[in-house]
């Protein structure tokens, strides 16, 4: 499992430390002649509260790589196979850092990660130090690509995109349906939810919305009755809601119990719950008609539909929105390896920077990175649960259903 891609890699990381700790960290094995195996590191939360999401992202990466291997590996490297090493960062930056160092030491040519901004800040920093490309699968903090790093790339839309595009869609859907809602109340988890809300608050006035109040809450609360009752009392046209899957299940039931039925409806802003199949599976009718501005796969693409089918067979688990970016990040890397015809980190980085990948599973044009390494065509879509299915309703180009708006309350679906 520690076989190396190229001898030159070893020179780059220095004579591997065999002193003292060698027994604990693994002695390098002899380079296998062929077929060559290229090591890629994936760092995601596989245990801890983020484990369900982290696992699905890691599985997305896994699927793309398995498909490539099955199709004959990297042709420009003589059919080299790719091996994905899955590491668990336990939602701890400290563990993420250790795993990044280890994977690079073991000879990973690139890192994929990390589903938690705090961890991605670490792993990308370490990759930068070693000159190893790091493709961010999921992690929304804008700062990740704003530190002038040469090796950090992100395919996924960042926090600003998520917030701004969602607000824009909400105005669009209002116009489309000829309703004029103005007031918004926001309930948001107090880490990434607050990060999103801060941006929503800036974008809202530009689209004619007025934020009448917001309530941050700590994830994993035992009860949110009082919080949601306060939101209800704000009597706004719309409620914007950001949070994680677990909180979402609790909040949704509480909305229902408290009869919270705003005129426009409840709309998720990059909500970790509303675009998750588990949400519908667990809550059934309560989930019906809920909207969410989030990332999603491209339902109009036959390729995406095929990938989802294969994913669900391979992992016997539903394909989640997060999985899209695990899969796409891996696609970018595979495409770059093919074009670079080399595993040299500098050449690989150059190839990734020049990416123009049209065949991927997310909505939006080809994946193209700007100077900072952010995918300029990362597209947010508006989803809605319709008859137990998550449908894209905006933008029109990627929609597979018409929006139902204003969102009918529980009593009416």
């Amino acid at each position, binding site marked *: 499992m520690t076989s190396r891609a190229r001898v030159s890699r070893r020179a780059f990381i220095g004579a591997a430390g065999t002193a003292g700790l060698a027994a604990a*960290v693994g002695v390098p094995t002899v380079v296998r002649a062929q077929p060559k195996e290229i090591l890629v590191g994936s760092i995601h939360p596989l245990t801890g509260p983020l484990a369900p999401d982290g696992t699905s992202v890691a599985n997305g990466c896994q699927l793309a790589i398995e498909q490539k291997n099955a199709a004959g590996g990297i042709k420009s490297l003589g059919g080299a196979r790719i091996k994905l090493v899955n590491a668990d960062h336990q939602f701890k930056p400290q563990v993420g850092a250790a795993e990044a160092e280890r994977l690079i030491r073991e000879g990973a040519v690139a890192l994929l990660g990390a589903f938690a901004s705090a961890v991605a800040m670490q792993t990308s*920093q370490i990759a930068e130090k070693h000159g190893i490309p790091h493709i961010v699968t999921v992690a929304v903090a804008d700062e990740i690509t704003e530190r002038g790093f040469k090796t950090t790339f992100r395919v996924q839309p960042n926090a600003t995109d998520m917030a701004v595009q969602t607000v824009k869609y909400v105005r669009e859907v209002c116009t489309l349906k000829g309703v004029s809602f103005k007031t918004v109340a926001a309930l948001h988890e107090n*880490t990434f939810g607050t990060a999103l809300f801060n941006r929503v608050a800036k974008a809202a006035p530009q689209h004619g919305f007025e934020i009448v109040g917001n309530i941050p809450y700590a994830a994993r609360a035992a009860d949110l009755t009082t919080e949601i009752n306060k939101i209800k009392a704000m009597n706004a046209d719309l409620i914007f809601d950001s949070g994680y899957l677990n909180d979402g299940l609790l909040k949704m039931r509480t909305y229902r119990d408290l009869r919270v039925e705003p005129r426009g409806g409840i709309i998720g802003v990059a909500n970790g719950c509303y675009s998750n199949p588990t949400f519908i599976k667990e809550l059934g009718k309560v989930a019906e008609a809920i909207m969410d501005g989030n990332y999603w796969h491209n339902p109009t693409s036959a390729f995406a539909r095929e990938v989802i089918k294969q994913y669900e067979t391979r992992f016997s688990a539903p394909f989640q929105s997060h999985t899209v970016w695990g899969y796409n990040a891996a696609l970018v890397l595979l495409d770059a390896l093919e074009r670079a015809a080399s595993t040299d980190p500098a050449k690989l980085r150059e190839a990734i920077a020049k990416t123009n990948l049209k065949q991927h599973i997310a909505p939006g044009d080809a994946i193209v990175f700007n100077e900072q390494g952010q995918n300029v065509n990362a597209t947010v879509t508006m989803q809605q649960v319709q008859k137990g299915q998550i449908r894209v309703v905006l933008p029109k180009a990627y929609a597979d259903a018409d929006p139902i708006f204003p969102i009918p309350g529980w009593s009416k679906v």
Partner: protein
Amino acid sequence: MPSQYVIHLAVMILFFAYLGAAWNILGGYAGQFSFGHAAFFGLGAYTSTLLHIHYGVSPWIGMALGGLAGVLLGLGSGFLSFRYGLRGPYFALVMLAFAEMLRLLFETWMSRSYPLGLPIPLKGTSLLDFQFRDKGHYFYIILVMLIAVTWLCHRLARSRVGAYWMAIRDNEEAAQALGIDAFAYKLLAMAISAFLTALGGTFYAQYFLTLEVNELFGVQISVEILLSAIIGGAGTVFGPLVGAVALQLLSEVTRVYVRAFSGFDLMVYGGVLILVIIFLPQGLLEGMRRPYRAMARALST
């Protein structure tokens, strides 16, 4: 030159040995089992970092100021808990509550401007800014810190103060009957321990360069701090180091090699922890000494 990975592992070992030793002064020598050292740790990290980011104060100065903040917090929480003679599990839980309270306060405060964590601006390598691209520098810094704290523990353990602490630990009433001001000496242990732990917070911040409230003030870090001291041997000079080596290697080896399924490594880690506590309740150091003593006895007869 060893790889950055090996250096990172070494830094983590020394770092947790250092924190364990700092905890040990209060928990091991003075016998006051704190379950909330995260409070001092996080306070140190945030003090130096906020001063650095907002006022351009060098983290080295911030480190000292963070230490002082830790002392103040230590004296405050110590005053509250020792004044009423809270001990054992009571004291442990009270410290946990203090840490949780601080975590919530910082979470609310930080989430206004830094909801996704507080990044320290990257400067490359700069001694003044306590930042180095090469992990080797951090290794030497934490090594010096560990040696200093170990030397301090060694001296304290043999001093009058150390003797008083151990007397208080073994039997507080008896110690007081002998005229030892238990309250004052416990506060002293608290202050020293809090100061050193807060310095560790700054080191951690400068090493990782991103601060996340739930990590720095969380129960998890409180546990990790005391774990190396206890597993190694509470109230011994080298216990924290032995514990840190064992635990960090165990965690690393299980995470890298024991991967039958996600979480299996943590199960094994927990299992080993259980076994060590059942079979070596006095810690690894004592466990290592036992065969040595038996051998010495065999040789001498």
